[in-house]
């Protein structure tokens, strides 16, 4: 049921493309931290949004990140497995956490 989305078109492109022609939105390689669980983050999060969406949320609690992932599963219907839910939560809290569980 997955609809394939063309992601990560790393292209120089013409940044001021004409609207009536094909629009090319630039790709930005946001500097995201590497670490345990990153593969799961890449596989589950990047399908729908850039890493900019993650790193511009500010440092957050573990509960905050877990609720974000739940929102993606419950409301946005992202097919994230139970196992990955935990891996991604751990990764986000470790690298983009504020040290607080709640």
């Amino acid at each position, binding site marked *: *049921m*997955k*609809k394939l*989305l063309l*992601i990560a078109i790393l292209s*120089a*492109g013409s*940044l*001021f*493309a004409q*609207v*009536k*022609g*094909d*629009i*090319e*939105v*630039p*790709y*930005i*390689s*946001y*500097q995201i931290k590497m670490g345990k669980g990153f593969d799961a983050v890449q596989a589950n999060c990047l*399908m*729908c*949004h*850039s890493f*900019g*969406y993650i*790193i*511009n*949320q*500010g*440092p*957050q*609690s573990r509960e*905050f990140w877990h*609720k*974000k992932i739940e929102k993606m599963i419950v*409301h*946005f*219907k*992202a*097919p994230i497995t139970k196992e990955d839910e935990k891996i991604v939560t751990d990764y986000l809290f470790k690298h983009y956490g*504020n040290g*607080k569980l709640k």
Partner: protein
Amino acid sequence: MKRREFLKTSMAASAAILGTTALSAGETHQPIDTRKVSDMAFPEKRPLITYSDRPPLLESPRSTFARGITENDEFFVRWHLPDIPTYIDTDSFTIKIDGLVEKELEISLKELKNDFEQVEVTAVLQCGGNSRSAFTPIAGGIQWGSGAMGCAKWKGVRLSDILNRAGLKKDAHWIGFNGKDNAAYYETPNFVRELEIEELNDHVIIAYEMNGEDLPYLNGFPLRLVIPGYYSDSWVKMLSNITVTNKYKSLFFMDVAYRVPDNKCECETPKHKFKPTKPITNMNVKSVIGYPENGMKLYHNSHVVVRGVAFDDGHGIREVLVSVNGGKTWEKAELKQENGRYAYTEFRYSYKPTKYGKLTFMAKAVNRLGDEQPFAKDIGWNHGGYKYNGIDEVTVEVV
């Protein structure tokens, strides 16, 4: 575009994120104002503060608030879903009106421009989460500074004229709007917005022009809904479907997101979230200083003209007051109101700094109902970081 430039862009956007202290009460303060515009430009845009490329999230810098009309290439951008058509065939594009109507319509862009009365309204478009970075603990969502807003002249046709041509059935009660943006998964809900028929008036239009040009692609080309006075989550972009129903359908973006506590202060604490909640609709009174900017140096005894913009949900701005002594005393700024009650009111305030060192300008708008902006610290916290309208502050150095 070189890779090095990509990196600089991403670092600029991710820098300057507030540290957090877990305050059980929740606090508000000035929004973050240290973010720089990116080195990279998106289509039809000059470089803006860039939070995400997919979906595109771009913020205007403070300098845009020195003018009453925001130029198209510096107007902020906020999409929710990642899959935005990158090609629109203007010859075959149609907007469909269906559901509880006497006659289903499919109107082409050409018909829209030729067969209906063309109207124009100047109105402020503002994200409900604009200035969200003013909230501590951090509210979920993009940590916008003050630049998720702009004001433009929108040209199009009245929604009511289109609905009249289709003819509403007797039990018609809700109008749902959907655009051409899609999620990565079929199961993800569309970004649909519903309005009650009672909420409609002649100012609600379907716009194809912004400031005399086609809508920029990133602002919803070729058509978007314009609801003056309402926050921008209701202004559906790349509008392609209007469906009239008798029953309200549950919608994520109205029922879960974009809601504030349904109490007088529209506030709560992080520990005690308030139920029930209500959708954000009408904008509250707000003003932002466009010049000078934080950190600028001004000359002692020079002639400074503080400039900015103020607006509300269409009741109109009565006055804008400026303080240079931390809010102890206020003086009236000069106003320029030439684009109607939904537009930015421009304000100017002349000042001659006579003391060296730090100088803080504050601006406070009051609307015709007498509603006035509170100090940032007096705003109640809410979990979504919505509807921030604290008194704006800019601190400069007199040298």
